[in-house]
């Protein structure tokens, strides 16, 4: 059985909890569309802590690096962010595809910080969902049945081994490769 065993609502709830614990703020303040940086005051170190909590909870590996850093590693330094820290038109084109409506006001020449403030509770939860959706068709033992074991971690119904999800960075790399093949942005 493939597809997510864990519902979006559960993931959203866990994401809110992880944020509340890291930032030491009331759960009520954390809305799906809250910007982690602008509305909730998160800083870069906080993101790593929130990610860590989600990783422990779901048995996954969240992306360590932001999409534009991956672009520069894959395609070359300066392709997404220029030497003054401003985003290139190509970077904006990619973000518009990736973020859709949320990126509608982005313009070339803005600083990278302005993009990271677009990260919301929902987008973080969606990142978790993307990783959870990568659950393999079969366990290495051959069984195709997964179940939710302790906490929220998927394990094989037959041998009990934890599911090996794709890691967040690999998914971003695959995404960039796909978009690049289709649209040749860079």
């Amino acid at each position: 059985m493939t597809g997510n065993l864990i519902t979006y609502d559960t993931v959203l709830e866990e994401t809110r909890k992880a944020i509340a614990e890291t930032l030491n703020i009331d759960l009520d303040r954390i809305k799906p569309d809250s910007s982690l940086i602008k509305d909730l005051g998160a800083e870069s170190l906080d993101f790593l802590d929130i990610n860590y909590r989600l990783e422990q909870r779901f048995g996954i590996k969240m992306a360590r690096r932001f999409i534009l850093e991956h672009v520069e590693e894959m395609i070359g330094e300066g392709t997404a962010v220029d030497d003054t820290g401003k985003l290139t038109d190509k970077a904006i084109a990619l973000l518009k595809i990736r973020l859709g409506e949320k990126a509608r006001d982005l313009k070339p020449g803005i600083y990278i910080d302005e993009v990271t403030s677009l990260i919301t509770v929902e987008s973080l939860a969606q990142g978790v969902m993307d990783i959870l959706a990568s659950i393999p068709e079969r366990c290495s033992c051959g069984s195709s049945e997964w179940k939710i074991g302790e906490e929220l971690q998927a394990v094989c119904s037959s041998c009990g081994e934890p599911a090996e999800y794709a890691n967040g960075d690999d998914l971003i790399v695959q995404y960039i490769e796909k978009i690049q093949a289709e649209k040749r942005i860079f």
Partner: protein
Amino acid sequence: MEKPFKDKTALITGSSRGIGKAIARAMSCLGSNVIVNYTKQGGSSEQQAKALSAEIESLGCKSLIIRADISSRDEVKDMFSKITSSFDSLDFLILNAARAPFKPIEKLFERELRMLVEVNLFGNIYCFQQALPLLEKSQGRIVFISSLGSRFYNPSYPLGIMKSAMEAVIRDLSCSLSERGINANAVCGGIVKTDSFKVLRQVWEGIERIPDELIVEPEEIADTVTFLCSPQSRGIKGQTIVVDRGLSNRVYHF
């Protein structure tokens, strides 16, 4: 008994969190006034700086919060004009602030390399240059917070380069400033469970296997800093004291 640092004043850069916060607490417990410095406006650091400052004041010490990015020379100058207008002296300069990308050196972008040097080398030098006249007047102390990355390989830890460089700066200052009555030393921390540890944990597979008895508490670093600020450490000059619970001696362990 009177507290040993009564009427003294300490500036601790990057003190809203982690080791800096523990140092701020320890200094104020000994009676020192504390200037709490953080960089980012409007975020969690600012909240933590406010809470810390209130805690220091509840101990009967003066506290001033100053937002300043030490990598900007202008912001450092502003910070020092605020200090001189609020306090009669500056006795201790604790260079604790640090900021760095966590990735292999080969993968650093130019802007990350610049940030690494601008915050962790230039920033510290700007701070002590501005502090010099004040420290000369108070016959004060400089303490730099280093880490084992200055001498051992840590995965994805380019900050180690700057820690080595700063330990060399401290050695230099202890000689070049000694005629003016200023002393400088460093404390080199092992693995400390602060917010930065959360980063290490994500780039360093297996760090969780290091036994708890080898994990340093921020307070243990802070206690060494207060010692290096006290008259009892007057014979120690230009040194880097390792506070790592013996981790760096335990090669056999792995």
